[in-house]
């Protein structure tokens, strides 16, 4: 089972060490340099932006009191529910030449197009802005938790030693592993992004993969770029591990009372509120309002029945994917609990890495691996009968679902593994001694105890699948659409207002796990 799911990634790694020199040569002479440059500079700027926004807001919330601080504490997480490409659509609709802002300016000032300078949102800067606005919550969440866990004694010791710059000297260095953890997630998401950069016309590695694949018709070339992207991701993961490893001393010893909060007053108070308010407004409230207005302008009633179909499609594929992913996670964990072997341990860790791999990379890997399987199968079939060749593996939902499982198994694994660890090993033995075998023990003891976490896992994966764009775009069977793909297609056709309707559905469902996540973090603190 693990072999089947590991195959696509193995195929890419193989590709990495077995470069097809001709394709590689052509790519590197023409476009590859540009792809890499744009990807890396996007990575750099989004990382810097997320660090600034995330750490500053986390520090304000964790250690200060100001107007609205309690509300901002969770409002600041909400942009997580917004897929970046949807925010990109909303801002483009609003700020583009034909959008309400520029139209109003023109009408009011009696200008016409070309009379004034207006920054173009569909640009590199726009992409940095949009990605930063939706990705900073990763840094905010982890940094906030780190700041809040720092002990009061440490603060007092620093004061007694006559130190003045607590943030710079103590708080920030101690929170460094957490901040880097958040930034690593931001980097991975930035590298994985396809929807935003494609819409803004950037030439990054992800758009390069699709252009090479479908534009030049070269799967091998796409795979080359994908393996390059994969190695970038691996570098980031190693970097994060390195930073965390060397800073192991910063890990706390359970909940303690933190240093006292500083109450802000006067202009400082208003600046703090303004800053948090601005971030929340740009990252969540404004795009949401824009989507609502756009939806109001849309001609949804023209394709209402299509829309119902779309929802049914999306729910069924996301539901199936989520259930299968969680089932596989459960199976792996169950087998591991019984065998305790290093092999299952390795499988669990290896499958967990899928979450770091961009969806598009997984799509390329799955297509390649399943293509080989199909060729092999057809080879076998043709020696026995004259049946026409089939695309059993790569043709239908199998490829799509496999990609989903690889990408989101880690999401499913986390809550289930945590719950499994809380089940006392003696319960298994007590059950065995009453004559139940391992499977019965699973059914009568594990399953009832795991049920709540299984539902959480299904929900989390479900929402992630709902938002997933690039892998679905590439692997979906012919004429099969999900909400995310439909929004993408409508936006590509410049029907932004219509795209707002499926986008709103995605955002609405996406809010659920954010709320769950927030509750969990609050409970832990």
């Amino acid at each position, binding site marked *: 089972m693990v072999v089947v799911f590991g195959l696509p990634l193995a195929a890419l790694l193989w590709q990495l060490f077995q470069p097809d020199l001709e394709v590689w040569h052509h790519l590197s002479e023409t476009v590859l340099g540009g792809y890499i440059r744009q990807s890396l500079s996007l990575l750099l700027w989004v990382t810097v932006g997320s660090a600034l926004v995330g750490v500053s807001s986390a520090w304000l919330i964790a250690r200060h009191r100001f107007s609205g601080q309690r509300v901002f504490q969770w409002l600041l997480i909400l942009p997580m529910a917004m897929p970046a490409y949807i925010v990109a659509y909303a801002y483009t609709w609003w700020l583009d030449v034909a959008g309400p802002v520029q139209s109003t300016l023109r009408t009011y000032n009696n200008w016409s197009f070309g009379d004034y300078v207006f920054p173009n949102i569909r640009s590199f800067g726009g992409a940095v802005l949009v990605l930063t606005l939706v990705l900073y919550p990763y840094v905010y969440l982890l940094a906030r938790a780190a700041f809040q866990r720092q002990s009061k004694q440490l603060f007092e010791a620093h004061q007694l030693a006559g130190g003045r710059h607590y943030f710079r000297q103590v708080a920030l260095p101690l929170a460094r592993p957490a901040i880097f953890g958040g930034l690593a997630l931001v980097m991975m998401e930035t590298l994985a992004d396809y929807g935003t950069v494609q819409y803004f016309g950037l030439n990054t590695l992800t758009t390069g993969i699709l252009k090479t694949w479908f534009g030049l018709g070269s799967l091998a070339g796409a795979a080359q770029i994908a393996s390059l992207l994969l190695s970038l991701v691996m570098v980031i993961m190693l970097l994060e591990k390195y930073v965390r490893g060397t800073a192991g001393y910063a890990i706390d010893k359970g909940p303690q009372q933190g240093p006292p909060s500083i109450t802000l007053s006067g202009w400082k108070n208003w600046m703090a509120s303004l800053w948090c308010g601005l971030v929340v407004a740009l990252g969540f409230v404004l795009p949401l309002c824009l989507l609502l207005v756009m939806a109001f302008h849309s001609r949804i009633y023209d394709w209402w029945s299509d829309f119902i179909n779309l929802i049914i499609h999306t729910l069924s594929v996301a539901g199936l994917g989520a259930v299968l992913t969680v089932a596989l996670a459960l199976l792996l964990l169950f087998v591991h609990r019984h065998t305790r072997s290093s092999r299952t341990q390795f499988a669990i860790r290896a499958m967990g890495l899928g979450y770091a791999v961009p969806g598009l990379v997984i799509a390329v890997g799955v297509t390649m691996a399943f293509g080989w399987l199909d060729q092999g199968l057809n080879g076998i079939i043709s020696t026995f009968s004259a049946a026409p060749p089939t695309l059993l593996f790569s043709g239908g939902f199998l490829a799509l679902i496999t990609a989903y499982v690889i990408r989101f198994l880690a999401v499913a694994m986390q809550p289930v593994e945590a719950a499994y660890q809380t089940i*006392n090993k*003696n*319960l298994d*033995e*007590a*059950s*065995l*001694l*009453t*004559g*139940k*075998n391992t499977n019965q023990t699973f059914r*009568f*003891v594990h399953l*009832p*105890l795991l049920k709540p976490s299984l539902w959480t896992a299904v929900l989390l994966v479900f929402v992630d699948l709902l938002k997933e764009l690039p892998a679905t775009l590439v692997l979906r069977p012919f004429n099969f659409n999900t909400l995310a793909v439909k929004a993408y297609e409508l936006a590509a056709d410049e029907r932004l207002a219509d795209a707002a309707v499926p986008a709103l559905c995605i955002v609405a469902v996406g809010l659920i796990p954010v709320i769950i996540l927030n509750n969990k973090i609050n409970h832990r603190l």
Partner: protein
Amino acid sequence: MKTLLDIKQLTFAYAQQPLLQNINLTIDAGQVGCLLGPSGCGKSTLLRLIAGFEQPQSGTVMIDHLQVTGDHHMLPPQQRQVGMLFQDLALFPHLTVQQNIAFGLQHLPQEQRRQRTAELIQLCRLQKLNTRHPHHLSGGQCQRVALARAMAPKPKLILLDEPFSSVDRGLQSEMAQEVKSMLQADGSTALWVTHSLEEAFAVADQMGVMLNGQLLQWGTPVELHDQPASPDVIRFLNQANLINGQLNPESRLDTVLGTFDLCNADQFMPGDILQIGLSKHLLQVSTPTEGSKAIINKCIYQGGHHVLTATLTNGDQVQLFHHQSIPVGQSIQLKVSNPQPVLGFAIS
């Protein structure tokens, strides 16, 4: 009487570390066997071997004349008909008291299942708690539910792993006796592991002392007390002092604390160096004119009496009880009150 549990030559090592060496013991049907030993001596490991959770390097385990662990085969735990009362009880948190007890009865027809559950609820006095979940019960109630669950399928053998280690010390022997009467009422055979002397003497029909993975002796409580197999058994059971001496030509043992009659003098030759155990209760502080000299080096008040540690003239240390405090460093005279014939052991 029929032998129910028969363990022969059981040896178990984990990661090259020998945990159990050559264990031999038997328990008759309907009796409670008690394994006594300090924590880490391998008692719990032995239970896990009997239950089938671990596989020994060598030796056999027979339950009711059926070999469950042997040289080349291992019966899986679920087929051994063994019940277990875990140290942490391991009640199923998602099931009610009634469902916990009935958990092992699912193979029975409904009527029988209901009847057996009711029987155990009656026996373990859980009548009003039927529908509660474990987290709504007190520690003692949880204990009774765990016992009822272990007994429910009428296992051939019940294993109890330090069942009262978390119970207040004063209640241990009372609760132990209560559990024993429940076991007896159901006709169960049990192997009971504990580190509490009190608990062991309260319940054991057969008992044994384990130390460093070895079973030093296995027999009735009276046998262990009156005919200990080694000085370690004496030390563990009586918390006694061990004293060396030499056998004189009249076959009596000369020691620093005086001369003693031996009940097994015929096994030794005059001139042999032997060891005997002397209970703390037998040593007394005497008048300056009699006994032998010792120097106090510790005096600890233990409520009602003091425990003195004294160094004898040959350098050995002994402990004794005394009604009043004596300053450290003071020299005293010690004697043995009412000396009885004792068992001597050759020093190995």
